[in-house]
């Protein structure tokens, strides 16, 4: 019954004359290795960049020599400060990537989803009302976590059914951040005595971060970092769209909840140690996605490295800049907080991101 006139569909996969060629996927590992080298270079720069000890003196100390003061400055001040800066940057970047993926919103970052301002509020409240102090730094982390969850929860309730709209979330996020910032300011006014160093949290600084901070930060970051990497597979799928992910067999509600919790914990860990470093969690994920692509099992470690490089580099720059300002104004004690630098640079970069990302396609 098949006559000569029957139109037979040609099988898929064959175009006339060009047999399908299997393209080889480009491996992201060289880029990861390169970024790791950048982080190492940034770490060295950050340790060298300070004021009191010359680069030669730092080298001498690292080789085991140097006088007692130099040894104290390098080993007890500069090295922990550098380590804290790197890990805090990694935490904020991964937190931002998790938030953006879970909410499918390129404008979501811990700063604009109420997480960071909430964490600052939690830390300030805990310190201001004497629930936590230098003797119990873990209490500050827990308080920051609860605050971060409160901030994110507030945004969740406020956006309601319109939370799928990235712009809607961003607008309400600014609102929530303003409210939480106002509450923080009120606490600062009510209980100013205890909170001399608290202003540093608001801007974000690595000044005076010592081994005590590091000892608390790294186990926290490691645990939640591993959790983040385990969530990378589900989140890659979730980025394909809610219904697509559910159709492929993912329990989307549970995956999103776990990712949000993990993001809040990472951001709170960073905030309670170095304060609210502006724009790192919002912008570094875009850098990581551009460098490493959409497979989050590669991009989550990539974002961690990129965040470490950005905050470590900003910290080194802030120290160099602070030294230059000190010379200019002849003010010996002047320091430039790293948070001021990331915020200033980030605000400029945000314009680029907003113009480049057509949000409806995300």
């Amino acid at each position, binding site marked *: 019954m098949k006559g000569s006139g029957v139109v037979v569909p040609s*099988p898929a*996969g064959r175009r006339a004359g060009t047999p399908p060629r299997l393209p080889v996927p480009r491996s992201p590992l060289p880029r990861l290795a390169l970024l790791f080298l950048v982080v190492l270079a940034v770490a060295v720069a950050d340790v060298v960049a300070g004021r009191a000890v010359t680069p030669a003196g730092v080298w001498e100390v690292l080789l085991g020599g140097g006088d007692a003061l130099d040894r104290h400055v390098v080993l007890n001040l500069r090295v922990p400060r550098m380590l804290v800066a790197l890990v805090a940057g990694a935490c904020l970047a991964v937190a931002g990537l998790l938030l953006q993926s879970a909410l499918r919103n390129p404008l979501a970052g811990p700063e604009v989803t109420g997480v960071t301002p909430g964490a600052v509020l939690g830390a300030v409240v805990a310190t201001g009302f004497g629930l936590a102090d230098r003797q119990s730094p873990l209490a500050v982390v827990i308080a920051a976590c609860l605050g971060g969850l409160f901030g994110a929860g507030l945004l969740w309730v406020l956006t309601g059914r319109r939370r799928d709209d990235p712009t809607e979330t961003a607008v309400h996020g600014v609102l929530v951040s303003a409210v939480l910032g106002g509450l923080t300011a009120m606490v600062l006014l009510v209980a100013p005595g205890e909170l001399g160093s608290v202003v540093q949290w608001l801007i974000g600084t690595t000044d005076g971060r010592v081994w005590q901070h590091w000892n608390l930060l790294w186990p926290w970051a490691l645990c939640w970092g591993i959790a983040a990497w385990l969530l990378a597979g*589900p989140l890659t*799928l979730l980025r394909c769209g809610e219904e697509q992910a*559910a*159709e*492929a067999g993912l329990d989307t509600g549970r995956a999103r909840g776990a990712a949000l919790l993990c993001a809040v914990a990472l951001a709170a860990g960073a905030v309670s140690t170095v304060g609210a470093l502006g724009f790192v969690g919002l912008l570094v994920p875009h850098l990581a996605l551009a460098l490493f*692509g959409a497979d989050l099992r590669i991009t989550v470690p990539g974002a961690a490295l990129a965040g470490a490089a950005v905050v470590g580099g900003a910290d080194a720059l802030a120290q160099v800049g602070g030294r230059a300002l000190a010379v200019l104004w002849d003010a010996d004690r002047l320091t430039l907080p790293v948070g001021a630098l990331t915020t200033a640079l980030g605000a400029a970069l945000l314009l680029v991101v907003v113009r480049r990302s057509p949000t409806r396609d995300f």
Partner: protein
Amino acid sequence: MGDTRGAVDGPGGTGTATAAQRGPTPEVSTAGRSGRPPGITVRDVAFGYPDRPVLRGVDLRVEPGELTALIGMNGCGKSTLLRVIAGLLRPERGSVQLGGEDLAGMSRREAARRVALLHQSAPPVPGMTVRQLVRQGRWAARGPLGMLRGGDDAAVTRALADAGVTGWAERPVDALSGGERQRVRLALALARDTRILLLDEPTTYLDLHHQLEVLGTVVRLREERDLTVVMVLHDLGHAARFAERIVALREGRVVADGAPREVVTPRLLADVLDVVGRVSVDPVGGWPVCHPDHPLNH
């Protein structure tokens, strides 16, 4: 029925022949694939949104290995019915069984291992390559944390080849045209390696050449992989040409059900699609051909 089957076998047979020329297809474990594919039993299913009922008691039995086309006007509930069968929407009333197992008792992952649905549309993820996207279809087949398993790469490669998108595997999905994306979505559904395949308008965005190509692929894969296929088609001509059975929905109810040569009549055009037209028989293939004339005005 015999003639219709013959027509359906046509493209399938040719497809198999060229598949051999294409060289060795990657080996994919066929363990657990013996026996007939599961059938689908839909019993008295109702579903709706607060202000709008969509399905009002659908009964449908799809036999194992059958190639069924769902037709109907916009908003008649075709896509909703596919979503209910895929377990994405929970019916308000009634039940769905896949191969005798009740869908309501399955987790998302268990359901996704049995049935794959090609969506009408899915937003492209910036920067995601075709291969990365198609690999997402392996989620349900993997362990709890989504670690890759041995057969995953083979299943992905085979799905890319079957959908004819191998050449674009490393291109970002958002750089593809609408028609190209549609074939990538077919690859995504095929990568699932399920025995039940649901296709929601698989020919959308495609030109006639690629419409026939995709439908030919579906017919061929149904034979090769021994699948139960239900697809929503807007083109009644395609449904009559490629499906073994046509189920017509109107306002959330099944209004016609049978082999194309039995149900594709001027009466069907008027009752189901609100179209006045004629139906003839293809002089060579023997399948019904529709000649729509003008919309029916009540």
